C-alpha cells in the first residue's frame, strides 16, 4: 500500500486570501521558511513589534512583488506564522518588515522602512559572487530564501573519531584554493576544497576546522590599503549576517542558489576520506555592529532580546566589535541551539569552535555566570551529543577562562597558555622547562579532572603569525591593514633568528627551518589535541602580517607552489603526523601521573635532561626530554613502543644520556630536526644506544622497541 496522499491533510488547504495570495495560519515552529504541502510556512518572532509583514520578491527584483501583513489571528504568543500557498520557492526571495517603537533608551530600535533578513533563513542571496560590488541602493541586501533540506547523504554517518585522536587543520575555504597555483576547477570554493582532499589525506590530518562559513558580507570593511588604495575586505568572515545559511560566495554554484548542496557535498567527501569537519562559529556578535551599524535582522526584530544592553539602552561591547549577542537570554539560547542542531542534522558537521566563547557564559548584564545555561544546554543536547565543542575561552573584555571554562565534561578549549609557553621556550627564553613539561603532558594544571583532550594545543592559528613568520619576524608588520600597524597582537613571543623578514643567509634559513620543525615536533608529540594552521606544513608566510582578517590576496592564500619548493618541511610534517597516529601512547586521554600504573617498570611519563632521569628544572635550563612508556598507552589497553622526545632550545649542542630501555629494546631514530626524518616503521637503530648528540636549537624523537633482527 502506498503512503496516504499528503494533500488530504486539512492544513494543505488555504483558509484566507491576502490580495492574490492564498494563505492560512501557519505553524510557529520551526522558525524561518519551511516547505510544507502546497506552500511555504513562514514563522518569525518579535516581542515588541506593533505590526509584522512578510515581504516577497521575485528573485533579483529590486522592489517587492507583494507584502503580506500577518493577520492578528496568525500570531501565537510573540510569534507570527503564516503558510503561503502556490509560491515558486526557487525564484522567491523574502524578508520581514517589523514596525514598532524606536526608543533606544528602552532597547527598541524598530524601523518600519527596512526589509529585515530572516534570522533563521537557510539560504541567503545577494552576495553570491565573492567580492562583487552590489547595488548599494538596493532596498534589501541579504535576501532570505527557501531551502529544500533534501540533500541525499547516501550512507554518510558521523566518523566519531575520539577527540584525543584528532589532528586538526585550521583553514579558510576561500584562502585554501584561491591562489592560482591551486590548479582546481573552481578556485576559492567548497568545490575547490573538495579537489584538495587527497592532499589532506596525504598530510594525515583527520579534522578540518573551517573559519566562518555562515553568510557574512566580505564587503563591509570600509578601509583601503594605504599604499595601493585597493579595497580591504572582511576576509575572515567574523561578521555573521545569517547564522543558518552557508556563505554563497564560497560556492561555485552560489549564482545558481546551490551553495547548500555544494557545501554538503564537500562534507560528505571529507567524511569518506576519514576527515571530520569543525566549524568556527561566531555567536558573540553580529554584523549589525553598534548603534552606527546597519539594521539587517535582529536589531529590527527585537533589539532588546538579541543584544546585551546597558541600563540606558546602549550596546555592551565585550566582543570588541560594537555589539554583544545576549546569549543567555532564553530566546537567544534557543536560537543558538537550533542553529547548531541545524548544522549537525542538515550538514553533518562534527563539531564547533566557538569564537570568543567566554561571552557565552555572561548574563544579560555582562556578569559571568557560574552555571551558564547555554553552555550546559549545548553540552547535553541530544542532537549535539557527540559533536566536538571547542571554546576560545576568552573574550575581548578581559574574561580569560583558559583552564576554567564551564565544561560539563564536554567542552575543550583552545589552550592559549600552551601556545605561549611553547613559543617562548623554543625562542630560547629561560625559566620555562617546568612549564613546558606541564604543557606537553596535556596541561594537567589547567585540566585536572578532565581528559587531556580538554586541551586543544596549538602554536599558530589564523589569528597571529604563521609558523614561518613566527621564526622570521620579531615584530608584526600590519601596515597593509590601514591601521598604522596598531591592529593585531603585539605579544607574539616570536624570534626572527637573526634577521627581520626574508633572509638570503643560509645559516638564518637553516635555523628557521629547524625552529619550525622543533615547534611542530613539540606540538605533535604533546598530549592533547594538536591543531595545525593550514600552510604551516609548507612554511606559508604573511610577510609578518599577524592580522590578515582583511587581506584577500596572496598574503592570506595558500601558495601551492610551496608544496614543491618547501617539500622538506612538508615531508617532515607528514611523517610527524603519521608518527602521532602510529603511537597511541601520545594520544592517551588520561593525564599522565609520573607513576607506573601497569607494572611496566617505567612511569607513564618521565622527564630527563642532558642526563637520563635528571631533568634540569633550573631557570637557566633549556633542554627537556620526555619519555612516554608504551605499556601505558591508552591506559595500558593497547601496546606501543617507548617514545622519547628531547628539545634543546639552547644555542649550544648537548650530548644527551638516554634512559635505558627494557631488555632487548633499542632506541631508533625517528626524527632529528637538524638532520633527518624517517618513515614510521623504518626508523634506523641508533649506533650508540645510550647517548645522542643533539645540535643547538634542535629536537629529536626516538622510538624504543625490539631491535629488528636484520638490523646490522
Amino acid at each position: 500500500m502506498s503512503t496516504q496522499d499528503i494533500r488530504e491533510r486539512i492544513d494543505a488547504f488555504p483558509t484566507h486570501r491576502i490580495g492574490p495570495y492564498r494563505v492560512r495560519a501557519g505553524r510557529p515552529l520551526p522558525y524561518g521558511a519551511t516547505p510544507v504541502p502546497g506552500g511555504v510556512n513562514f514563522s518569525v518572532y518579535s516581542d515588541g513589534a506593533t505590526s509584522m509583514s512578510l515581504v516577497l520578491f521575485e528573485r533579483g527584483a529590486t522592489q517587492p512583488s507583494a507584502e503580506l501583513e500577518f493577520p492578528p489571528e496568525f500570531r501565537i504568543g510573540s510569534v507570527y506564522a503564516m503558510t503561503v500557498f502556490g509560491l515558486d520557492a526557487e525564484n522567491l526571495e523574502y524578508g520581514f518588515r517589523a514596525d514598532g517603537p524606536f526608543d533606544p533608551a528602552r532597547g527598541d530600535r524598530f524601523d518600519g522602512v527596512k526589509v529585515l533578513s530572516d534570522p533563521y533563513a537557510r539560504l541567503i542571496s545577494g552576495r553570491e559572487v565573492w567580492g562583487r560590488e552590489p547595488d548599494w541602493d538596493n532596498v534589501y541586501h541579504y535576501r532570505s530564501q527557501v531551502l529544500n533540506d533534501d540533500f541525499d547523504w547516501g550512507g554518510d554517518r558521523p566518523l566519531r573519531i575520539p577527540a584525543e585522536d584528532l589532528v586538526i587543520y585550521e583553514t579558510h575555504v576561500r584562502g585554501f584554493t584561491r591562489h592560482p597555483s591551486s590548479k582546481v576547477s573552481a578556485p576559492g570554493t567548497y568545490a575547490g576544497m573538495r579537489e584538495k582532499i587527497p592532499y589532506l589525506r596525504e598530510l594525515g590530518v583527520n579534522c578540518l576546522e573551517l573559519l566562518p562559513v555562515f553568510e557574512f558580507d566580505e564587503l563591509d570593511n570600509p578601509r583601503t590599503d594605504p599604499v595601493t588604495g585597493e579595497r580591504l575586505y572582511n576576509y575572515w568572515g567574523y561578521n555573521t549576517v545569517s547564522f543558518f545559511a552557508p556563505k554563497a560566495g564560497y560556492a561555485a554554484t552560489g549564482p545558481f542558489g546551490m551553495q547548500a548542496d555544494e557545501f554538503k557535498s564537500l562534507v560528505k567527501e571529507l567524511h569518506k576520506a576519514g576527515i571530520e569537519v569543525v566549524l568556527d562559529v561566531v555567536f558573540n556578535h553580529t554584523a549589525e555592529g553598534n548603534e552606527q551599524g546597519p539594521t539587517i535582522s535582529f536589531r529590527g526584530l527585537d533589539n532588546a532580546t538579541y543584544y546585551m544592553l546597558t541600563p540606558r539602552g546602549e550596546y555592551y561591547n565585550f566582543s570588541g566589535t560594537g555589539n554583544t549577542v545576549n546569549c543567555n537570554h532564553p530566546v537567544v539560547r534557543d536560537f543558538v541551539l537550533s542553529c547548531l542542531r541545524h548544522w549537525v542534522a542538515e550538514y553533518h558537521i562534527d563539531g564547533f569552535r566557538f569564537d570568543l566563547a567566554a561571552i557565552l557564559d555572561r548574563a544579560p548584564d555582562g556578569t559571568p555566570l557560574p552555571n551558564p545555561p547555554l553552555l550546559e544546554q549545548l553540552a547535553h543536547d541530544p542532537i549535539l551529543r557527540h559533536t566536538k565543542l571547542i571554546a576560545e575561552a576568552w573574550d575581548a573584555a578581559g574574561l580569560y577562562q583558559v583552564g576554567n571554562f564551564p565544561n560539563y565534561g564536554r567542552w575543550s578549549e583552545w589552550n592559549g597558555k600552551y601556545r605561549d609557553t611553547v613559543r617562548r621556550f623554543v625562542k630560547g627564553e629561560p625559566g620555562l622547562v617546568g612549564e613546558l613539561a606541564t604543557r606537553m603532558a596535556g596541561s594537567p594544571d589547567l585540566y585536572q579532572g578532565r581528559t587531556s583532550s580538554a586541551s586543544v594545543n596549538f602554536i599558530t592559528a589564523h589569528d597571529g603569525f604563521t609558523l614561518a613568520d613566527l621564526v622570521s619576524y620579531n615584530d608584526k608588520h600590519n601596515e597593509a591593514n590601514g591601521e598604522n600597524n596598531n591592529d593585531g597582537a603585539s605579544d607574539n613571543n616570536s624570534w626572527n633568528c637573526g634577521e627581520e623578514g626574508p633572509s638570503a643567509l643560509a645559516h638564518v634559513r637553516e635555523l628557521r627551518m629547524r625552529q619550525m620543525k622543533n615547534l611542530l615536533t613539540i606540538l605533535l608529540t604533546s598530549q592533547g589535541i594538536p591543531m595545525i594552521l593550514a600552510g604551516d606544513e609548507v612554511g606559508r608566510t604573511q610577510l609578518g602580517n599577524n592580522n590578515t582578517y582583511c587581506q584577500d590576496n596572496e598574503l592570506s592564500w595558500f601558495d601551492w607552489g610551496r608544496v614543491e619548493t618547501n617539500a622538506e618541511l612538508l615531508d617532515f610534517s607528514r611523517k610527524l603526523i603519521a608518527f602521532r597516529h602510529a603511537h597511541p601512547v601520545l594520544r592517551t586521554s588520561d593525564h599522565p601521573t609520573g607513576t607506573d600504573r601497569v607494572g611496566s617498570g617505567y612511569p607513564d611519563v618521565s622527564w630527563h635532561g642532558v642526563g637520563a632521569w635528571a631533568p634540569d628544572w633550573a631557570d637557566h635550563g633549556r633542554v627537556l626530554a620526555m619519555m612516554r612508556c608504551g605499556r601505558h598507552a591508552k591506559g595500558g589497553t593497547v601496546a606501543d613502543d617507548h617514545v622519547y622526545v628531547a628539545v634543546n632550545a639552547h644555542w649550544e649542542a648537548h650530548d644527551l644520556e638516554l634512559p635505558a630501555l627494557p631488555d632487548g629494546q633499542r632506541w631508533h631514530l625517528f626524527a632529528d630536526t637538524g638532520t633527518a626524518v624517517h618513515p614510521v616503521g623504518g626508523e634506523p637503530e641508533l649506533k650508540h644506544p645510550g647517548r645522542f648528540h643533539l645540535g643547538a636549537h634542535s629536537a629529536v624523537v626516538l622510538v624504543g622497541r625490539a631491535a629488528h633482527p636484520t638490523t646490522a
Partner: protein
Amino acid sequence: MTVKVSSQERTGATVVALEGEINSTTSGGLQSQLLPFIGQGSVVLIDLTGISYISSAGLRTLLIVHRHAQQLDAEITLVGLSDEVSFVMSATGFLDFFRVAEDLDAELERAGR
C-alpha cells in the same frame, strides 16, 4: 512552459531526449513525463544535449527519477551534459549518483550488447 520530451526505442534501451530549460516551473511536468519510461529492469538513456540550463529544482527532479529507477532495478544513464551542467552537478554532488556517458551511440552499442 514545458520541457520537450521525445523518445525512441532502440535495441536494449529507451532514449529520452529533452529540450529546453529544467527549472522549478518545468520540472514538475517533466517528472510526470519521465516516470512512465521507468519500468521494471528498463534501461533508459536521458539525452540532455538539448538542455541549456538545469536549476536546483531540475537536478532534484533528475535525482527523484533516479531514485524511482533504483526501486525498479532500472538503469538510468545521462548523456549529452553540457560543460556547465556537468560542472554544477559535479560541484553539488549530484553527478555522483548517475551513470554518465559522453557518447550516445557508444552507449547504445553497450546497451544493445
